[in-house]
Each structure stands twice: as structure tokens, then as C-alpha cells.
């Protein structure tokens, strides 16, 4: 049995030689290479995490901005020009007022009595 086993094992070991990994993978990395690798991993982790955080912050900022009341007033709507239909009521009223104020001028030449002085002797 032991002999059979060892004969079987030798066969097994013979097969093993065909499926062996390439030599470079079998070589243990040096400390410098390991360090470089770890550094690369750290950077990648940092950037990936930062990107996510950046996007999250942007989303939060957008949400806050949309709900904020700014002090800047909304632009006034452009007034619609009045249709050309003649003077409005307001214009007529202002003209009427103007006429009343003009007539109230105390310095306006009064309608004085007629200049009809006559020489009564004849």
C-alpha cells in the first residue's frame, strides 16, 4: 500500500509540473515594491472616496441653494405698454386737475370793471 501510494504520488507530482504558475508570480515582492503598491492603493482609495464626497457635497449645496431666500428681489415684469386708444381716465383726471389749479392762480388778470370813465360835462 505504501509503495502504491508513493507510486501514485509520484504520478501526481509528475502532473503538477505541467500546471505550475509562471516564475514571476512565484517570486516574493521586494519591500520597495510592496511599499509602492500599498501607496498606489492608498491613493486610489483616497481619490475614490473623495469623489464620492465631492458629489455628495455638491448635491447638498444644490439642495440648500434652491431653498434659500436671497435678498435680491425678483426682476420686475416688463410692464405691458398701454394700447393706443386715446387718453386714459387717469390722464383725463390729471388734465382736469391741471385746469383747476391753473384757474386758481390769484395773479391771473381779473375781469376788471370796464374802463368807461367819461367827461360828464356837456
Amino acid at each position, binding site marked *: 500500500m505504501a509503495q502504491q501510494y508513493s507510486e501514485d504520488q509520484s504520478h501526481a507530482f509528475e502532473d503538477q509540473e505541467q500546471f505550475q504558475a509562471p516564475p514571476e508570480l512565484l517570486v516574493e515582492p521586494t519591500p520597495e515594491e510592496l511599499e509602492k503598491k500599498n501607496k498606489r492603493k492608498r491613493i486610489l482609495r483616497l481619490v475614490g472616496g473623495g469623489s464620492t464626497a465631492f458629489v455628495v457635497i455638491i448635491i447638498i449645496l444644490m439642495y440648500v441653494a434652491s431653498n434659500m431666500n436671497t435678498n435680491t*428681489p425678483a426682476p*420686475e415684469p416688463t*410692464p405691458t405698454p398701454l394700447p393706443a386708444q386715446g387718453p*386714459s*381716465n*387717469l390722464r383725463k*383726471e*390729471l388734465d382736469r*386737475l*391741471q385746469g*383747476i*389749479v391753473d*384757474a*386758481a*392762480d*390769484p*395773479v391771473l388778470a*381779473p*375781469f*376788471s*370793471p*370796464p374802463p*368807461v*370813465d*367819461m*367827461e*360828464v*360835462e*356837456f
Partner: protein
Amino acid sequence: MKVYLSVFFLALFCAVGVVQASQALDKAKADYQYQLDTYRSAYDEFLLKRTQFENTSSFANQEEMVKAAKDMLTRRARVWKTYWQVLRVDTWETEGLNPAMRDELIGEIDEIQVLLNEHEINIPGINNREPLLAEAIAINLEDLRFENSSYKVLFELEMARFDWAMRQLKEFHNTLDAAIEVQVRSNSEKQLKKRGLEEVISIINRLGEVYDEIGEDLRRPNKTRKYIKIYKNMVDELSPYYSDMIRVNDLLVEISEGIEL
């Protein structure tokens, strides 16, 4: 339908009435001017005939002079009559005049018109120099009363017009205030217009106080009651405040910008 037609015709009647009222004043003034022009020609003719009579005191020249004097006196009476007609129409049309004062002024004018009518009726029947001279002297003496009465009318009409103008400006201010509340949405613009209105009402109130003081002072009973002096004092005292009234009017026009009534 009947109600609408009635309202339409009533509005039309009122509009026609307003137009006719101002036309009546224009016509009265035109009549007065015509009579004044014909009186001046008649007076020049009378002076010419009088000079001829003074140079050559013939019966014919005296007759010519008397005829010219009668014509002159008739036209003179018509000048006064048309003048009082102008003041009568103006008194009716002046807005804001106290009804009791209007009645008083119209009553005085009508009395004077009766006197002038009598004078005009008398003249054609007088053909001699001396009675004609007496008639001329009598009516000439009335001129002082006519002058005083005319300045009384002018004084009251001017005071009424000034008061009416102040009241109309105040009323427009109130209407504008309400319109601003409804129409102006921008808070900053609303505040700006309201500040303007505060200035307006402040000036009007001050004007009102000054006007009441001036009126009280001028109407205080005095012995002479020379209305020509009262009228001139009124013009001197009110005219500086007229510039405030113009300022109020200009402010209201400015504040009205962008408002529709």
C-alpha cells in the same frame, strides 16, 4: 334696457350742459368786448360833437352833441350790462362757491342790472341837454358802487377757486393712495410713492391752514369795505402759496406714473 337708455341720455345731457356752460361764458365775454368797442367809437364821436358845439354854439351843433351824448350813454349802459352778465355767468359756473354766497352775489348783480335797464330805457326819451346831463351824472355816480361790487364778486370767486383746487387735489390724493395699495406690488416702489403722498398731504394741510387764516383776516368786518383793496390784499397774500399748489399738482403727476385709475 330702459334703465340703460335713461342713464345714457342723462349722461349726454350733463355733458352737453357742461360744454354749454363754458360756451355761455365765452359768449358773454365776446358780447362785452363788442359793446366796449362800440362804446369807445361812440365816445370819440361825442367828444368831436362837443368840441364843434363849443367852437360854434349853434342850435344844430347842440342837437348833434345831444344826439351823440345819448348814443354814448346808451352804449355805456350796455357795456356795464354785458360786464355784469359775464360776472353772473362766472358766478354760476365757479365750482366750490358756497351756495349762500352765490345767491348773495347773483342778487347784487341782478339789482345792478335792473338799475342799468332803467337807465337805458330812460335815455331815448330825454331830448334836452340839461335833463340828459342830470341822467349822465346820476349814472356816473353809480360807477363807484359798481366797481366795489365787481371786486367783491371777483374776490369771492377767486377764494372759491383756490379752495376748490385744494379740495380736488386732496381728493385725488386719496384716490391715488387707494390705487397704489392695489396696483403697486413692489414694496420698495410702494414705499417711495407713499412717501411722496405724505409730502403731498402735508403741503395741502398747511395750505388749508394758511387759506383759512387769510380768509378770516380779509373778511373781518371793517368800516370802509373797499373791495378793490381787499381783492388786491388777497392776491398779495395768496400768490406765494400758489407755488405750493403747483408743487402738489406736479408731485401727484409724478406719483401717478404707472398707475391706472
